[in-house]
């Protein structure tokens, strides 16, 4: 490219760049047209469905969950964020003793959100919630019991 062609090309490309930024600036100046900032406490945040906030256990309206107490999630967890305290109790349907969960304990403070427990779960009992309000003043409140008090296994999960 010759000397003058270079100059003309430079001016052209610089103006092109300014056109691009100007295209964003002027609508933003009066109408905030392209502004993507969410002013969080004033405006509701947009949380995507795949956002990994914390692990929760799904319960239906009869306070039943799908966790059989197989401990696959506990084994899959790389840093021991999940502890399952289980018990043997009489199953009213069969009249035999059966293994079931007492407490599904989840340490949110240790969790790295790697999703391995959710992939390991054979019955889809645990899942990600999109809750991001996880900050607390006391780290003990980050240790959560995922199964609700008095909940029991949903019928038909083990088949």
């Amino acid at each position, binding site marked *: 490219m010759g000397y003058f062609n270079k100059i003309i090309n430079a001016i052209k490309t*610089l103006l092109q*760049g300014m056109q691009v930024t100007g295209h964003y*600036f002027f609508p933003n100046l009066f109408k905030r047209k392209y502004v993507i900032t969410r002013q969080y406490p004033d405006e509701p945040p947009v949380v995507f469905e795949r956002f990994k906030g914390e692990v929760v256990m799904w319960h239906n309206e009869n306070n039943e969950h799908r966790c059989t107490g197989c401990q696959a999630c506990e084994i899959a967890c790389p840093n021991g964020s999940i502890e399952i305290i289980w018990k043997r109790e009489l199953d009213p349907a069969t009249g035999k003793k059966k293994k079931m969960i007492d407490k599904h304990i989840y340490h949110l403070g240790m969790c790295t959100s790697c999703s391995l427990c959710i992939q390991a779960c054979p019955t889809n009992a645990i899942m990600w919630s999109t809750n991001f309000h996880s900050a607390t003043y006391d780290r003990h409140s980050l240790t959560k019991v995922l199964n609700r008090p008095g909940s029991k296994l949903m019928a038909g999960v083990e088949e």
Partner: protein
Amino acid sequence: MNLMTANIFAQWLQGTHGWLYVLILVLIVAIYLGFFAVAGLLLVLMERRVAGFFQLRLGPNRVGPWGSLQTIADALKLVSKEIFIPKFADKLLYKAGYYLVIITALIGISLIPFAREIQAFDINVGIFFISAVSSVGVLGILFGAWGSRNKYSLIGAMRSGLQMVSYELSAGFAVVTVVLMAGTLKLSSIVEAQHGTWFLFKGHIASIVAFMIFMIAGTAETNRVPFDLVEGESELGAGFHTEYSGMGFAYFFLAEFINMFIIAALTSTLFLGGWLAPFGITDALPAQWFWGLFWFMLKTMSVIFLMMWFRWTFPRLRIDQLLTLEWKYLLPIGLVNTVLMALFVWKDWLFDIGKIFGL
């Protein structure tokens, strides 16, 4: 509001006037210092809001209505911070650095004609004096960098010196083309000479080329992005003001924005008719000083906005690209342009609205 400070000062030196004149001088200095602080704060705020809108953000909008008190809060924070001087710093040069930068910026601003007769210091070599003084500002940067004993500061300051030496030349040639049209170096007379046609249009091709060169060189002289190699964050920490904290840093920051204001004000004075109204639309109205200020500020703010637009669009140049741009492109073009303008003035091939319409 006739501020003939130069005369007052001369008469005071000769002893023909008493302490009243000293009082007036002090008052004028106070007005300029006030303007200096307010303009600095407003420009920082404007820069941040404009940057926000360019980057699809909002910018500061929480402190005060539309974030208008944000920079005041920042200034308060900086005042309350500790001024930390490095152990092995050269304390005299370290402190002389920011004072020199601030003083040169203040001298520069005192020469700007804000409106008819609102000018602190109207001397015959006005534009020449401004370019001389603005080159002294780089000494402050060098002092500060040398004094703070930091190799990155010094690299930044040397780059600043390099940039100033290079770009002062093409800025000078752009100014010379204007002076050829105006026939004077006095800033108020340069504005008066633009009655009818602004110098941006009067010299058609040569003027527009000179305007572009002056904008590029002015941006480079104020060390703003695309030419901010001086502080290149990714290479030098913060460049020459790495070792400064609190108000020391704030002075450099303020001076940078005031220098931007000076360059923009000079651009509007030299090319856009300064305080003259376009087509004289407000000439018949009362309170001429207000309208002068209004038009001057409008033009200056537009040029400042243009410089901000540059800043948030263009990527930073490499040092060799910077020098190539100056010595291989701007300087030869500026030289040829000056000769071209001399030819236009000599043959009277100027574009003059008054002459064309027989007014």
